[in-house]
């Protein structure tokens, strides 16, 4: 007997909200990627708890895929950030307005 399933859902929901705040409200590209990481992690938490709740292993398999997606996303995202930083010399997303006229 651990805890009710709803408490895990609440914990993951609060974590997800923190990730959204980090991705939306920070003036930094790296912090936006970190916010996406927090959101993916909270989704994985719900998957593992659901796998325990229903006694099915599929939830844990999906968390493995979430890990792989997070790794791929972060590698491409950081490569993009480095490229953009070398072109503009800044990490503030508001300076990337070269397409605006």
């Amino acid at each position, binding site marked *: *007997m651990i805890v009710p399933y709803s408490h895990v859902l609440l*914990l993951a*929901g609060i974590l997800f909200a*923190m990730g959204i705040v980090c991705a939306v409200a920070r003036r930094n590209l790296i912090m936006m*990627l970190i916010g996406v990481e927090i959101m993916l992690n909270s989704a*994985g938490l719900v998957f593992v708890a659901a796998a325990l709740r229903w006694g099915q292993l599929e939830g844990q398999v999906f968390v493995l895929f979430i890990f792989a*997606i997070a790794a*791929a996303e972060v590698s491409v995202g950081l490569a993009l950030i480095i490229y953009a930083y070398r072109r503009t010399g800044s990490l503030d997303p508001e300076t990337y307005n070269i397409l605006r006229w």
Partner: protein
Amino acid sequence: MTLYAAIFYILAAVILIATALAITRRNLVHSVVYLIISFFGSAMLYYLFGAPLLAVLEIIIYAGAIMVLFIFIIMMIRVEPSALRKPTLKEWFPAGILGFIYLAVALLVVSKDPGSHTTLKIALARPRIFGQFLFQKYWLSVEIISFLLLIALIGALYFGKAFAKGGGETKEDEP
């Protein structure tokens, strides 16, 4: 309250505090270190929920590889400390209203759903069982994921090479 419930609430408090500190720090290295603490807590929660292999993978991939990648990037580029954006009331108000509606609905759904009050029981998925299950039923997905990782590797290499061959602005000035 059983011992497992106490462990869960302590870990949940640590994770929430560490994440809240991570998203509010001005210094990027500090926030990455706080995030590592948060991911360690998540790994222990995975272990508590009966997924020891995923707990180890969380530490290796999230707290290890991904966070080290972030620290490398932060060390490579000079990052000026940045604060939280201060939105005006006109920007902030509609988003706040919509978010509050979603929060209320989510709390209602979680509290009224009879299925969500069932208490989680202790169980353990041994890594051997988990691996056999994964490669018997989801081997095709594993192959597709490996292909995705290969594509990500090629994409990262492309961005590195595109700059080295003169895609940047500093190279364009040279004859």
